[in-house]
């Protein structure tokens, strides 16, 4: 019995690793109807950027953000000759954001090094990559079929992961925990880091709920994903809504990456591994509700723990096979097939 309790608690805390990424998956799906296969890469970028900053190096993410911003600005460069004022107006936000990014990195490396500053800078840098990727990969063909957008996100994943491999290399890096140590309950060691993740995830859920249900901006984002034309008629720019959604999703994932890195080390492959299990957990809520996404990752963590104990060679197979009956159960509640109207 002891062992079961142990495994249960262990499963819950290890499920926490997927929590923030699962939330961001739900966010991006509800706000843009895109099932984003590349979402895990923002988590990886968060972890790797933090590792670089804590090591005292200029994070390659800065280069990605600057280059990406330049690419986004590219269509407007032609305006430099024809209408300089238009170019300046278009370029101004990019320049401001670039200046912000450069300033933050400088401050973190030379003026105020430390965990807090590094985490803040990482958050800003990776959040900026969200709208950049949105601008380059989703906005050009907003009305494309869902399957096409999924495959485009696969391409994005290849690019981001490949670039990370080139820029950071394949070696894992240690990241010091913001809060060291932990508490022992029922014989199980629960690190404060894991507790911190759960607290942040809970707060994030509340915040997301408040944002999407209670604020006008949040409702506008939801509206834009349900009916683009309708939202346009109400004065909501779908492109801006999409960019904001991607930014929020990237930021949330990056936060997840920063908190998770001390537990599993920062390496360029964690995006895929964490992403897959987070996907499975988020599906528990049909990719539409936050609390159920959290419940889902807890379930995945517990399943993982138990099957790793029982038959460690087959643990992944067991978890993935159990996903299907769970999905059947969840989908069944979503209503039977109905006739016309």
């Amino acid at each position: 019995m002891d062992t079961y309790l142990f495994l249960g608690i262990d499963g819950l805390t290890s499920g926490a690793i997927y929590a923030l990424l699962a939330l961001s998956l739900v966010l991006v799906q509800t706000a843009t109807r895109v099932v984003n296969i590349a979402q895990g890469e923002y988590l990886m970028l968060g972890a790797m950027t933090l590792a670089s900053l804590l090591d005292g190096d200029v994070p390659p993410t800065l280069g990605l953000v600057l280059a990406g911003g330049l690419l986004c600005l590219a269509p407007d460069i032609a305006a430099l000759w024809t209408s300089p004022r238009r170019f300046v107006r278009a370029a101004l936000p990019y320049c401001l954001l670039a200046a912000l990014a450069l300033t933050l990195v400088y401050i973190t490396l030379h003026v105020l090094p430390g965990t807090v500053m590094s985490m803040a800078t990482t958050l800003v840098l990776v959040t900026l990559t969200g709208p950049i990727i949105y601008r380059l990969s989703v906005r050009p063909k907003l009305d494309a079929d869902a399957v096409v957008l999924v495959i485009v996100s696969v391409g994005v994943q290849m690019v981001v992961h490949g670039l990370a491999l080139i820029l950071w290399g394949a070696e894992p890096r240690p990241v010091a925990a913001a809060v060291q140590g932990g508490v022992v309950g029922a014989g199980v060691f629960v690190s404060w880091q894991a507790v911190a993740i759960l607290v942040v995830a809970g707060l994030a859920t509340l915040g997301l709920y408040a944002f999407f249900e209670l604020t006008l901006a949040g409702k506008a984002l939801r509206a834009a994903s349900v009916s683009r034309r309708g939202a346009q008629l109400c004065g909501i720019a779908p492109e801006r809504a999409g960019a904001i959604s991607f930014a929020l999703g990237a930021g949330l994932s990056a936060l997840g990456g920063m908190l998770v890195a001390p537990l599993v080390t920062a390496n360029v492959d964690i995006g895929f591994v964490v992403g897959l299990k987070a996907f499975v957990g988020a599906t528990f809520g049909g990719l539409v509700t936050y609390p159920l996404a959290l419940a889902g990752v807890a379930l995945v963590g517990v399943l993982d723990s138990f099957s790793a104990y029982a038959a460690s060679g087959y643990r992944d197979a067991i978890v993935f096979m159990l996903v299907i009956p769970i999905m059947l159960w969840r989908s069944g509640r979503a209503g039977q097939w109905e006739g016309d109207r």
Partner: protein
Amino acid sequence: MSSRSGRFLMSALLAATFLALPRPLYAQQSKPELRIGAVLAASGGAASIGTPERNAVALLQERYADADLPFTVKIVLYDDASDPTKSTSAVRRLVQEDKVHIVICCTTTPSSAAVLETLTASGTPAITLAAAASVVEPASSHHEVFKTSATDRLMVARMLEEVGTLGAKRIAVLFADDSYGDSGLAALQSLLPSQPAQLVATERVARNDTNFTPQALRVRQANPDIVYIHTYTPACDLAQEALRRVGYTGPIIQSQGAASAAFLSLGGRGVEGTIVTVAPVLLHDQLPASDPMKAKLDEFVRLYDAKFGAGKADTYSAMGWDPVNLAVKIFGDMVQTGKDVSDLEATRRGLRDGIEATKNYVGVSGVFNFSPTDHVGLLPKGAVLLSTVKDGRFVLLPN
């Protein structure tokens, strides 16, 4: 994009492609040319192992480009992304299109096994970097394949020796669930019957797992005297951490996968006192001056660290160093003895025979003595050393 600029882009792309295609390699050379092909994993699951191997080969490519030799050395590198299908394709390309004399392939065991038929059919010699003994033994069915580093069987044998020395009777193991772990487990299971120690728990872990606690718990509950972990970073660190957290206090042995600077930096204080099976390169500054490999090791570390950073020379970069040098040496011998090296098939055969006849070749992964029945050519004692982690460094354990 307008269709006119689209067409321009397409034609530019096509032009670039045609210009980039390799030219036939039969251009008149004043000197004979040794062509070495290398298929190593620069991306995919084995990237952390394949990259240092590639780096070593690339460094040699640079050095041989302006070396003063009676022949030129051309090295062609392909990335197989840790996929056996791509490995086979790449080796085919090297053998049929690039017409190389010798192939260095591959990083992983399944890739090395997949390319065997292609190599045998064309008679091209190959030096493999994969860990499993099965890719190079028995020599009768692996006529063309050699290995210039320790196999997993040698490493596990050395580890079991130490287990015996420590007097441990109950051993629990954690093996990776990829080909590295699988072939290591197979080696362990074949060697174990002749040992006094008894296997009390076998658990599988994945290199990129996020939670090692359940397996660690199972191991601890089996009450072992000693635990052996056989996987790469970061799993080897996280597994060790998990073992300590569930209350296991006994000794831990790590495999060659942990023989790297990353293991030390990730593990910190937690890995002090761990026994690690290492290749000689990590302990090069602790070897006595009388050791035949010392001079070569020091030179390798100096050159490698100069280009890639201090402390970067490790087991895998050393594994990439020897194959090229060995090939160059044999080819040089052939040229010096006046053999005609213009016929591709004859040269391949000559290289193969030359490697097989090599005795006492001092490399950076060991001293090699090949024979028709032994394509690994290593004695266990020399190639696999044991070390312990002390003050954040690997310290040689005397025999």
